[in-house]
């Protein structure tokens, strides 16, 4: 697991209800020694202004920004999927956005970004699915796993909302089911 984590170029983090604290903690953790691109998809309501970006950016030691259309995908940058859009991977170096139908009532949808990342980055990702109250992310995580990316799910017993990680486990989308502290130990390596 450690070797696959170290070799991956992209870290995908997906979370919904109950994942905010974990994502915030992760953002504070990262330093440029990470040597990866970080893409965070967190469910949230539209019309609530970029409070999350601002809070995250204020506490991040890496360059952090909300994804804009056709933005480049750079190393050692943390990207946040914008509200009311799906974030797609156009190619290895570029994002694209989409306003099509919500998936699992969610826009951004974790599935959409994960599936798109699976197609473009193949086995070069580590994806972590955290707490959430619906089933978004499970299908996408499975696609990533099939492409050979490292897939990790937060232990549902420890998640504030167990549905999302549990759905991924049911689909056999997880290489590993980790406790919260184990996830952070891995991120530190």
């Amino acid at each position, binding site marked *: 697991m450690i070797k696959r984590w170290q070799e991956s170029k992209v870290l995908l983090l997906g979370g919904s209800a109950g994942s905010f604290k974990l994502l915030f903690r992760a953002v504070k953790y990262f330093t440029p020694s990470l040597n990866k691109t970080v893409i965070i998809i967190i469910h949230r309501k539209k019309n609530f202004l970029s409070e999350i970006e601002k809070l995250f950016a204020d506490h991040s030691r890496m360059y952090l920004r909300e994804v804009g259309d056709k933005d480049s995908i750079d190393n050692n940058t943390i990207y946040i999927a914008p509200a009311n859009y799906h974030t797609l991977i156009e190619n290895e170096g570029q994002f694209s956005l989409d*306003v099509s139908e919500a998936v699992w009532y969610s826009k951004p949808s974790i599935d959409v970004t994960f599936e798109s990342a699976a197609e473009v980055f193949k086995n070069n990702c580590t994806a972590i699915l955290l707490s959430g109250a619906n089933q978004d992310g499970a299908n996408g995580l499975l696609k990533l796993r099939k492409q050979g990316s490292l897939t990790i799910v937060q232990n549902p017993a420890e998640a504030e909302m167990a549905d999302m990680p549990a759905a991924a486990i049911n689909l056999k989308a997880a290489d590993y089911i980790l406790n919260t502290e184990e996830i952070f130990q891995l991120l530190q390596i």
Partner: protein
Amino acid sequence: MTGDSTEERGLTSAEITDLINLVKRIHGFDFSGYSKASLKRRLTRIMQLKRLEFYDLKHMLINDNAFFQHFLEEVTVNVTEMFRDPLFYKALNSQVLPYLSTYQHVKIWSAGCSTGEEVYSLAILLKESGLQSKSFIYGTDINTEVLKEAKRGIFSLRKIKSYAENYQYSSLPGTITDHFTILYDAATIHTELRQNTLFSVHNLISDNVFNEFQLISCRNVFIYFESHLQEKILDLFYRSLCPLGFLCLGSKEAIRSDSFKKRFKTINAKENIYQKIGT
């Protein structure tokens, strides 16, 4: 690993290129400059909805003209909201309308208008700021089917209610339902708001300038185009604007090309409102 059915098999790049060429040759629509990630999702979605294999899809595109209209509707994203990004409408109200009010006639183009939600949002905004009688809004799309819906101006009440929060954040007086006649679960836009609108087919990729506008709004359309195509359409918009006319793009779409950055002044960087400068 499990051996999966066709729904797991994504389209290859070669197959997508094949479809693009076929649609261009037979139907005259050019999707070659579309963002590939989104296009692939749409094509895969059509195949799943219609339970078509790649060769079935090709066959239908070649032989079934009615299917093509449906294909066009599905492949282009027609998801839209009234008062999407409420702060954009607020900015338009405070930063652009005072300027437009100095014109005798205000012509507005909503490009890629889909089912008309943006056209009617603009119509409501113009009415509330007293500019309605001297303005005219043209809504265009490549899709004849969505334009029919736009013209009717009838929406489900449930949908209109889902825009109530947007409306409120845009700081307009009253509530969104004030602008509709409601009968059972259908909400029909007030006739006066439909009066100064015209919906018509226009293809941003292949059609040219058709009028001169004080304001062009093309929001969440560029996200489906690759950068070179965005630039081509920026040029079309530039030529369609009167001197000092305004261009509005989606909240995540910015003018990136250096040559166009020089020809447009940024009025609101957050909401991507620009003004044409130079000649």
